[in-house]
């Protein structure tokens, strides 16, 4: 698995101050995708054990972080590997909130509860879902690009068996 971006602290990819990792590779090929380079699974740098340890260390040592955000490409194309990373991260830093972005919708991911995609989903707290639709592009949206995309409270949604929209803690 390759990663094509990492911010130790960012305010753009989810609520609070979060670390963000970008996983290379995407097969959604949305029209208007601003970074088609990330479609390539070989784009960026290999996510080596050393790199992983560095990032886990960063997260562990930063008392201000609200959590981690995983984006892409689309991390769901590397679901098993990303899940394994999350498990190792949690082993070392304890409970931590994870936001994840995907071109798949919540419904698509939850279709098959046996799948690695479902496994990845249930490890995360918030899903930003859906493909980017150029016609629905809206730069004023918080944390996403087009208005079809939803910010989903994963835990609630899995309990209820239907999509429950995430609510921000503060609303200014």
């Amino acid at each position, binding site marked *: 698995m390759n990663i094509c971006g990492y911010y130790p602290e960012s305010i*753009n990819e989810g609520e*609070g101050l979060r670390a963000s990792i970008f996983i290379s590779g995407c097969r959604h090929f949305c029209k208007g995708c601003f970074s088609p380079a*990330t479609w390539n699974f070989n784009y960026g740098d290999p996510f080596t054990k050393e790199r992983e340890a560095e990032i886990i260390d960063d997260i562990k040592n930063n008392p*201000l972080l609200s959590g981690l955000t995983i984006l892409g490409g689309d991390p769901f194309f590397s679901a098993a590997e990303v899940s394994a990373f999350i498990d190792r991260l949690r082993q070392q830093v304890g409970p931590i909130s994870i936001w994840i972005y995907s071109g798949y919708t919540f419904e698509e991911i939850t279709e098959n509860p046996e799948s690695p995609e479902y496994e990845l989903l249930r490890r995360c707290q918030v899903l930003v879902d859906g493909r980017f639709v150029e016609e629905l592009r809206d730069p004023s949206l918080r944390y996403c690009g087009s208005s079809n995309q939803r910010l989903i409270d994963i835990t609630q949604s899995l309990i209820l068996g239907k999509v429950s929209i995430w609510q921000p803690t503060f609303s200014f």
Partner: protein
Amino acid sequence: MALLNPIYTDREVMLDEVITLGEEIVESRNLEVLRENANLNGESFSGKMSKFGSEYAKWYAEHFVMPKRLVQSIKDNIVYVHDLDQYAIGTTNCIFIPFDKLLREGFNTGNGSVRPPNSIMTAMALVAIIFQSQQNSQYGGVSANKIDFDLAPYVRKTFSKNLIKGLEYFEEGDLDSTNVGEISMSRSDLQELYPKAFKFATKETKSETLQAAESLIHNLNTMSSRAGGQIPFTSINYGTDTSPEGQLVIDSLLTATMRGLGNGETPIFPIQIFKCKQGVNQAPDEPNYSLFLKAAECSAKRLYPNFANLDAPLNLMYYKAGDPDTEFATMGCRTRVLSDRFGRNHLSGKGNLSFNTMNLVKLGLEHGIVLGQRKVADERGFYRELDLYLDIALEGLLHRFNIQKAQKAKASDFMMREGVWEGGEHLHPEEPVGDLLKHGSLSIGFIGLAECMKAMYGKHHGEDSNVYNKAYELISYMRNYCDRQSERHNLNITLFATPAEGLSGKFTKRDKATYGAIAGVTDREYYTNSFHIPVYYSISAAKKIELESAFHGLCNAGAISYIELNGNARSNPAAFLQIIQYALSQQVSYFSINHPIDRCSACGFEGIIGATCPSCNSHENDVHIRRLRRVTGYLTGDYQTRFNAAKQAEVRDRLKHNT
């Protein structure tokens, strides 16, 4: 005056200098001099007129007034005397204005007397007038340290008037003025008795207070009354008054600031400071918590307010519950004058008298390893020279203090006559202000701790824990020096984390000319502010806060810490709040978050704008993109340097527009 300091004995040389000074101003030749102060248009008539005055005043002070050693240390680029043009005439620096007293008693501007106001509208108008009048008695900032408390009584008056009016309209009855007591917004008994009138009065009072706040902010951004057409350097502190009237003042000021000026622009003045206090506004069950949230929202939109920490140990020491004048507040730039060895441990009625700043970098260069002259830093030599220049800086402050003391009360007429400086009202106009000034502070400031460490040891205090300890030792040493000298001279001598970014550029330029561009020391346009970790250094926000917080406790004349946020802060309030509260928990005394705000003039979109507006696709070459940054002299730092710039931009762009 006698020739105290005849450095240039040759009269012809002096004459040449004076003539050149004048010519440069008349012909707008020396742009550096004309543009020294971003607030003053040095190429306008009034700007030039004021430059004539100030340039000659500096020249005069250096030649005839100041101690010789001080002049030499300025030439050596080690000590900087702020507001040198005011030195010879003995003007004082900044002040916290006792607005409560001035509004309660009325005042005289010199051309006419003003009655105490009867409504919030008039009270806020008078606040602007008082700021303006006071500004002409001094040269630095003018600040309101508790504007919520100061103005609450006038909201009450407005409410009272409106309630009486409401009673008439709705024919709900009459107030028996003999036993009704004070009418206020917290009188639930009145609310029950006269629900319609009470509702009406509340609504009217809210709208009047908001209007008053809007006009105050407009006024403070438009009255170019200071020398050379400058706007007064105003600051307002608020946040802790929990009465409904005080809360309304705070709320209205925040709303007005968020609405902005005429075209929705961000107001540059007044600098606003929200005072944070546990038990008052820091947790959801506390009375002013919602105002704290609103302050954070306003700061995310407008860069102001900044946040003052009343619970930091050095501020808590002097805090007396129930006396808002003992609550730490600041002149927006960061000045702190809370403590007084003569017992006036409150804010209003005094201020800073003057300050001199040390260029730590130059001392570091002379005694460090970076020039390759030695393997190990010469700490003994460094401290020996530091002592010498601290003495010189202090000598300058004391010398200047004597000039200030000798000035007659009428020279700072408004300030003394009206008792803006506490006790001034008891002086005869011809009497010197004398000992009254001793309640103010004389401060020694410093700049470039980071570059100094780099020059001394090859690393700055953010890079290495040993160097961090050295840095902390150095600043403690300077603080001890100030404390010792306070005892010795029986004056308030304090240590200041100097804010002057303009100055940091001046020092740097000259050091660069002397030593060349040395990596991490003189190779940038500026020296790092006071004890800050350099903005260009990659470090987490939490770590920066932790490292800097310890220095706040040392700098008893004031300090500020900033965090640079790269991104649209207004869309992520949780992050904004989290960072502020983390800084407060780390005992940072005064704190703010810098973040970029761009505005597309074509469609009005506000947020982060690259080369093209994400909303209407206009390109920056075709339409004006207004890019607002806090004026620190620094660019927005990027602490995420692990990817190259192109790659970052790529990922970031994708992010902004995409999934």
